[in-house]
């Protein structure tokens, strides 16, 4: 065995990079299987009502069609709390685009043509698809995602606001946005007796196994979910989506393996999105910018299928020190697709509002916005009253300001362009979830490590190899890492920025156990270790700095440069970390300037349902983007000393852009996206 090197911290290229660029890496839909059939979904063309009749005759008469599935003939499914998965169980239509039938055929082409020939007659009723802050059916949810209280109050924020020297009271709105991962949601399903196997495009195989087992009323041991390579998810693949269930139902009915991939258009209805929000933020402060009150009210939507309550105000509860604080979430169930997780659910839209309001307060107090934030830095977590494991927001603001040239910033003009700069803070919680890993001596002198982690494009396979190599004291080439298979046991999903921390802990402990026993294999579950960790407030922090130019004639906003400065514990791989940060900031830029799922009120669906009409940033939009991080040594996290980095990049970006637009133009745009017509208005 060669001498061990320190792998963690090295800018290792992706261990699966070659397989990906040469097309050898297989995604769910690409898995070769004999005798496969293809399923195509038929979706509702009304937003609310009932199915009267389904006429499958024309579809069934087409060559190659094997079956038409609907509530007329589908098997009864088991219980699950995700009603979006209970396909074909009733004749009720909850939203336009809901899957109401499907065709299974010998080829994808035949399935799709036949799907277009299935005739569905409806009894439609009037639909209600518009979120407003005055909606008569607004209600107070019991909790917000995943299990936070909907409302919190510390002290008397109303009274504090009433007597504050300076008050900011502003309402911000964010548009619904869709995750739009590159790889569409896709599943291959096949049954062997009562054993079900899914090759699925999903962010977590172990959790998916449990959910699928519930839906089909099976013992979880009979279900296996495999996800070797996943082309992004941004939260929308956190749990099985309808195509997972559709493929499995179809496979059972035609007694063949079945592949089902959603179209891009269908992804705008079936797989979740970020709810639109209406947020009122009220800040009270002394003349010298010390916060006395923070109140944050969020209004958001869910569907009539199931409740998803985005935790929009949760970051506000712990961000700044103010003695009197109030946060509230109100929800309305509309005839719309169910919203779900999208990169930094809660923090992302919530911090747009809070960090815009903080910028407005800095203007009102005539203070530099960085200085204002420093003056309101809390000693303890304001909500829980406990220490932070580490909190380096101020360091990020100061170091970022230095690198960005913040002190020299000035609003200026260059021809028809108005130029200005903005800053915003970012935060994202640090979580871990119990995970199980197995490490093994291999006959060739190397090691193998198994864990049901998923690499959704983040580089998880690479960083876990680095972590294992260090734990074993060997070079990375001596470690064979196997992931993406529910048979490996309990594991965190690739979500909540907790993948690496959760899986890495398990990998380290399994490797340690293996070395201690000196032979064979060792399996470890981290449930007890995580339960025993000390009670501290654990968060990653960051600050985004943006310089924009705004066309004085057209209102077009273009970012000249973007800098993100982060405090995320130990960075395990600078190369893949940079990719996560700039990816997050790019998505934040999309949210700030372009991304918007347009609700067609007349028909009740998201109208611009493809990537030609729904604009995500392209290379030309990103001129100069830099991600950097401070050295942060936090011994209260996990064996690697790392914090999650998948989501914090997006969090403050939109507010930094909006604040820069204000600096450049003097116009405060409180609605996202900051379209040119909103700048001109």
């Amino acid at each position: 065995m060669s001498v061990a090197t320190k792998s963690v911290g090295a800018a290792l290229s992706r261990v699966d990079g070659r397989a990906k660029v040469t097309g050898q890496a297989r995604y769910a839909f690409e898995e070769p299987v004999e005798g496969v059939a293809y399923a195509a979904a038929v979706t509702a063309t009304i937003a609310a009502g009932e199915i009267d009749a389904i006429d499958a005759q024309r579809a069934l008469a087409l060559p190659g069609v094997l079956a038409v599935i609907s509530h007329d003939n589908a098997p009864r499914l088991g219980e699950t709390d995700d009603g979006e998965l209970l396909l074909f169980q009733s004749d009720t239509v909850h939203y336009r685009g809901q899957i109401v039938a499907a065709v299974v055929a010998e080829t994808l082409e035949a399935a799709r043509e036949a799907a277009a020939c299935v005739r569905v007659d409806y009894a439609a009723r009037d639909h209600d698809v518009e979120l407003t802050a005055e909606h008569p059916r607004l209600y107070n949810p019991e909790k917000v995602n995943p299990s936070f209280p909907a409302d919190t109050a510390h002290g008397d924020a109303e009274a504090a606001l009433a007597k504050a020297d300076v008050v900011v009271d502003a309402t911000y709105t964010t548009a619904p946005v869709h995750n739009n991962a590159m790889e569409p949601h896709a599943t291959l399903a096949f049954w062997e007796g009562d054993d079900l196997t899914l090759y699925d495009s999903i962010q977590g195989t172990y959790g998916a196994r449990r959910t699928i087992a519930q839906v089909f009323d099976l013992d979880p041991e009979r279900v296996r979910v495999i996800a070797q390579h996943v082309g992004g998810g941004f939260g929308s693949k956190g749990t099985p989506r309808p195509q997972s269930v559709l493929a499995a139902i179809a496979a059972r009915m035609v007694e063949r393996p079945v592949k089902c991939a959603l179209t891009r258009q269908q992804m705008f209805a079936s797989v979740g999105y970020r709810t639109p929000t209406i947020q009122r933020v009220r800040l009270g402060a002394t003349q010298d910018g010390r916060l006395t009150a923070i109140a944050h009210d969020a209004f958001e939507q869910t569907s009539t299928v199931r409740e998803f309550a985005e935790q929009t105000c949760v970051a506000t509860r712990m961000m700044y020190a103010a003695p009197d604080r109030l946060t509230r979430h109100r929800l309305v169930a509309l005839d719309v697709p169910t919203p779900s997780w999208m990169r930094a659910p809660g923090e992302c839209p919530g911090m747009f509002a809070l960090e815009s309001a903080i910028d407005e307060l800095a203007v009102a107090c005539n203070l530099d916005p960085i200085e204002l934030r420093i003056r309101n830095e809390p000693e303890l977590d304001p909500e829980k009253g406990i220490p932070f494991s580490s909190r380096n927001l101020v360091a990020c603001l100061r170091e970022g300001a230095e690198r960005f040239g913040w002190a020299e910033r000035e609003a200026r003009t260059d021809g028809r362009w108005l130029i200005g700069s903005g800053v915003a803070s970012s935060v994202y919680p640090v979580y871990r979830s119990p995970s199980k890993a197995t490490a093994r001596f291999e006959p060739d002198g190397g090691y193998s490590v198994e864990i049901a982690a998923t690499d959704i494009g983040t580089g998880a396979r690479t960083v876990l190899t680095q972590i294992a190599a260090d734990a074993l004291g060997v070079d990375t080439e001596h470690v064979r890492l196997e992931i993406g298979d529910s048979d490996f046991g309990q594991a965190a999903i690739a979500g909540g920025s907790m993948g690496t921390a959760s899986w890495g802990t398990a990998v380290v402990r399994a490797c340690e156990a293996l070395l201690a026993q000196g032979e064979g294999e060792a399996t470890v579950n981290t449930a007890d270790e995580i339960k025993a960790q000390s009670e501290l407030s654990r968060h990653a922090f960051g600050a985004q700095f943006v310089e924009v130019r705004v066309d004085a004639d057209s209102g077009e906003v273009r970012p000249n440069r973007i800098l993100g400065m982060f405090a995320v514990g130990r960075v395990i791989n600078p190369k893949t970390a940079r990719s996560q940060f700039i990816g997050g900031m790019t998505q934040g830029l999309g949210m700030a300037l372009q991304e918007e799922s347009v609700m067609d009120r007349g028909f009740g669906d998201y109208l611009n349902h493809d990537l030609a009409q729904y604009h995500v940033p392209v290379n030309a939009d990103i001129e100069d983007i830099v991600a950097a991080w401070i050295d942060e040594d936090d011994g209260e996290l996990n064996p690697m000393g790392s914090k999650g980095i998948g989501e914090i990049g997006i969090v403050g970006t939109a507010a930094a852009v909006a604040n820069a637009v204000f600096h450049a133009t003097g116009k405060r745009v409180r609605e996202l996206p900051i379209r040119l017509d909103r700048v001109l208005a």
Partner: protein
Amino acid sequence: MKAFAYERARDAAAAVAAGADGATFLGGGTNLVDLMKLGVAEPQRLVDVSKLPFDAIEETPEGRLRIGAAVRNTDLAAHPLVRERYPVLSQALLAGASGQLRNLATVGGNLLQRTRCSYFQDVTKPCNKRRPGSGCPAVEGEHRNHAILGHSEHCVATHPSDMAVALAAIGASVHVLGANGERTIPIPGLHRLPGERPQHDTVLNGGDLITAVELGAPAPRSVYRKVRDRASFAFAVFSVAAVVEPADGALQDVRIALGGVAHTPWRAERAEAVLRGAEATPERFAEAAEAELAEARPLRDNAFKVPLARNVLIRTLAELTA
């Protein structure tokens, strides 16, 4: 997607005969194939005209350019004579689509691309252009990027081409081979306003094959300015192509066309009339913009296009004549 027959046209006459018999011409396929996937276009027979010998860019004896209909957008934008004599055309092409699409898209196909109105592209919804008589949901629905000029109650869609806007300002003509022989159609004039028959984008008949585009007099002093929601790969919210010929401190000739405002590339004749022979001053530019936009009839949610067009038109003329 429905099954269809594909054939490559043997020659232009055979293509025209097939077209008159109901076949659909296929150029680069960058729009038609999308529409086929969406079920918006369901041709039974595709005749590929992209390999016909219309792929040359030739100089005419008068120093103008004749561009074969099958010339790819990328090649046209990069052609040295286009860049030198018709910068507005090169700029418009490069402002459109993406590099990959421009590599495939042909000149003929670019002119005949369909609107990107969301309702037109969604077969589950009505659209008078796709299904005449079914109604136009955009009038009351989502129409932020729809027309402000020349629209009708039957259709408020815009023409998506950047290239066509530049051609309208340059003053080009289209050579067409049809069942009754060759003819020439000027741009503007190829595209039509929606009126009561929005299903017809152009004045062409079945079987009419565009063989070439002939450009008007060289326009070395010209510019294309496109306003859009992202920096690349987005259709115009508004665009302007402008050509000027200054002489003796006055504007001897001015030609202006607007994009993103109408069912056709919109030749701004009222603005031109104000400016022809006038001095190049900000006041005159503003007057010209007002004259053109006085006709604007914005919809509920696209009134912003009027000040946007005014601002950008004034600035573009000022920069071009500076």
